[in-house]
């Protein structure tokens, strides 16, 4: 028993472990500030989710990423089934069907479908040579990614659905897809914009229009955009201090414990706090790439890259939307936003990364 523990700990990539825990702790502190007046005790709930995430983290590391890759087909099918289930029977909250109730826990399958799709793509791409069948591979990838993305978009969860696109692009890029196919994708994507526009719900269209021109809807969608920008900006260099943000505490910014959590950080911890957070995120990305470079297993490389891409895209869109650099799409900030499914899924993803590092020498 005693000899197992050191063996398990051997080869753990500690910086990633520390960083994820530090980020979650920062998140819980911010969630407390965002929600202590309104009730709901989100900080304690997030703490419980954090402990659960840690368990998943350790379990993932001890099982090893290879088993997950080998079973990726099953995970993929299960998450697709869950997404369908959510669409048909899901618990509706604020007009969207995203949750499945497991006892008193609300589980959001879209969070897990991201990772399942990354696992699936990594496994699929590594089995195919980039020297041939490029066209067929591209079509297969589009179908594999399109299916969960459309189901998530149907919920409707535009933000989570968007994540799938950069993840797929990054992974096929690394796999060795020829540049002309990216040009082709770009052109067809642009050409189908008008069609995609009609797939969106009216309120989603409004949010995108507001991003282009904030004066369109001063009392609706752009109210949020303006108020969150005021929140972040008013934090200045040093911030107003923990629990002192007026924009947050007076409910000017909606959803500030979930999607708009960064406006709390920006307001209460200022530019220095925000940059500190960005640095932590940047370090995580750097470490993720270090892990990619460390392993010789191509499947693992694809997997780690997909996770890094999903992660950085979410950071960019989430922080970007609070300062008007990205349209408002409901996406959580990894490790920081309140939300159990997202936190557990993030720990699962980074558990996979750590396990890739740990098992790099096994051939």
């Amino acid at each position, binding site marked *: 028993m005693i000899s197992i523990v050191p063996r398990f700990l051997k080869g753990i990539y500690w910086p990633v472990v520390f960083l994820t825990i530090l980020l979650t702790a920062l998140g819980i502190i911010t969630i407390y500030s965002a929600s202590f007046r*309104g009730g709901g005790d989100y900080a304690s709930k997030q703490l419980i989710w954090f402990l659960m995430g840690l368990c998943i983290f350790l379990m993932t590391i001890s099982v090893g990423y290879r088993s997950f890759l080998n079973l990726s087909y099953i995970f993929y099918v299960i998450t697709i089934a869950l997404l369908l289930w959510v669409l048909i029977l899901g618990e*509706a*909250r*604020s*007009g969207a069907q995203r949750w499945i109730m497991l006892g008193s826990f609300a589980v959001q399958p879209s969070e897990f479908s991201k990772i399942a799709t990354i696992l699936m793509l990594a496994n699929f791409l590594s089995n195919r040579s980039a020297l041939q069948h490029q066209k067929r591979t591209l079509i297969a990838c589009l179908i594999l990614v399109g299916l969960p993305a459309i189901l998530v978009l149907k919920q409707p969860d535009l933000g989570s659905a968007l994540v799938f696109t950069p993840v797929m692009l*990054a992974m096929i*890029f*690394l796999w*060795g897809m020829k540049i002309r196919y990216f040009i082709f994708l770009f052109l067809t994507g642009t050409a189908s914009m008008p069609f995609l526009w009609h797939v969106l719900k*009216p*309120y989603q269209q*409004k949010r995108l229009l507001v991003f282009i021109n904030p004066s369109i*809807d*001063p*009392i*609706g969608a752009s*109210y949020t955009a303006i*108020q969150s*920008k*005021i*929140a*972040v*900006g*008013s*934090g*200045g*260099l040093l911030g107003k201090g923990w629990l002192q943000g*007026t*924009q947050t505490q*007076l*409910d*000017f910014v909606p959803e500030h414990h979930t999607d708009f959590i960064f406006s709390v950080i*920006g*307001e209460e911890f*200022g*530019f220095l706090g*925000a*940059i500190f957070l*960005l640095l932590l*995120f*940047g370090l995580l*990305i*750097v470490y993720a*790439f270090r892990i*990619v*470079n460390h392993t010789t297993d191509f499947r693992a*490389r694809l997997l780690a*890259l997909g996770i*890094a*891409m999903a992660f*950085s*895209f979410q*950071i*960019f869109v989430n*922080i*970007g939307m609070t*300062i008007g*650099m990205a349209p408002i799409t409901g996406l959580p900030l990894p490790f920081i936003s309140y939300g159990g499914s997202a936190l557990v899924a993030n720990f699962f993803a980074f558990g996979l990364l750590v396990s890739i590092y740990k098992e790099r020498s096994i051939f």
Partner: protein
Amino acid sequence: MKTALRLKALQIGMLSGLIILGVGLFETQVIRGGHYRKASEQNRIRLIRLEAPRGNILDRSGNLIATSRPAYNVYAIPEDFDPRDIPNLSQLLDLPENQIRFRISQARFASFTPVLLKQDVSKEMAMQIEEHRPDLAGVFIQIGMIRTYPQGEVAAHIVGYIGKISREEFATLDPSVYHYDAWIGRSGIERVFDSYLRGEDGGRQLEVNARGAPIRLLGEVDPRPGSDLHLTLDTKLEARLRPLVVNKRSAVLVLDLKSGGLLAAVSTPGFDPNVFVTPGRSSERLSLIGSKERPLLDRSLNGLYPPGSIFKLVTAVAALETGTITPHTTFECPGYFRFGPKSRPFKCWFSEGHGRVDLYTALERSCNVYFYNVGRLLGEKRLADYARKLGFGSQVPFELPTADGLVPDAEWKKNIRHDKWYQGETITLAIGQSYLLVSPLQILRLVAAIATDGRVFQPKLVKDDFVSIKADKKFSVRPETFKALRQGMLQVVASDKGTGQLARLNFTKLAAKTGTAQAPPGEAHAWFGGFFPYDDPEIAMIVFVERGKSGGITSGQIAKKVAHIYHDLYSPAVS
């Protein structure tokens, strides 16, 4: 090598995303930080929702059935409100202090959204509040619209009413359309056409001072008023029809055969829809909902009853269409019917027997034995198939949801009742008993089709063109069949032995069929379905009285008065 290069590119891409964010944050927080700090300190922007006026509902000649009237509503913004003002405010509003406290605490999660304290206060009270406003921070009066139904019970079942959305609905509906205190159509036209009637709410962005008083209008989006809806109903007609059936449980339907529009859909007992929209009438609301008489049920569209003899029309259509009989086929009625010499007799309502009768006479006198014979020849399957073809057992395609009813056959009985179908059930089905359930609207459809050779078979309710209901398949019935039925129905009223003779009119020829449907325990239901003038039908009508004992007597007499009232209103002094 290529992989390494691509990896490098991806890493640079992701990190530069973060750098761009950093630059953006520097711009927002450091360079423009002072500006935003000031904005947040002066952030006293309040959002006031401007509710869109709900569209009116009018009858065919433009009389208002549902409209909105101005009402003074008292609001408070919780964040600006000073709890020390509660005693004062409680006195002014004549509202208990804990009520005020409760309402304000309810909106704790959106403390800048105004909460409604009291709705529809008198003008005097509104003036008093205005006078005391300097002492009451965060309290203000806004003129809102309140739904009102000026004609009370008239057309109430059709038009329906609105209600406040529930917490569950708020959680599931689009919050940009339905705010947390919104009204929503609860029944009838108000419910089905809610999105059309409600329009789109606007809003006002106000800057307020430290006491919560508005100082500047920052932005405004005008509400888009809901659209009006014009119905085919004639409320004047209905207002005169209602007294005929007051204190009864009944339904009267009048259909304009020229336009296919429903003129009246009376259902009694009725209710006053204002009860649902007027604050302070909640006890009346509860007694309406709990009443054993079920006043909220629209008996004309959703009441389901056995049709009795009026269903013989369907049996006749099936028999004529399948060639089972011709109008001249005769059967002997000794007052009863037996399958074999030893089986039990099924009685005719006239125990002495009608003698040898053809189809016309059988309809005229509503001879059961004739239709027992026809039913036996047809069989349960063909009979049920024809009933379904004529729209029974399924919803009538209509602007409002309607009851579907039940057409039984052997298969249904096996699947649902797990029992065998008996021969005796076939012949009772033929006279409209058995498990059969129909709504007055379904019978109206049949009568209208008979009157117009199948031209009018789908009643409508909304005049406006934008409403298109799914057109149903036309009944595939030969004109000769309809003609034979019209002849029989004429005799029902015109003959001195006809069951509907009490409805005979002195100004024109009315054709009809009566029904007295057994529904033990209790008295029989009274049906009467007819049309007039016989030669060029203008009107089809159904009179149904729950437990009315006799179709020919109870409903027939009412039907006659209905025809007279219609004549009064629509053909003044043609003589």
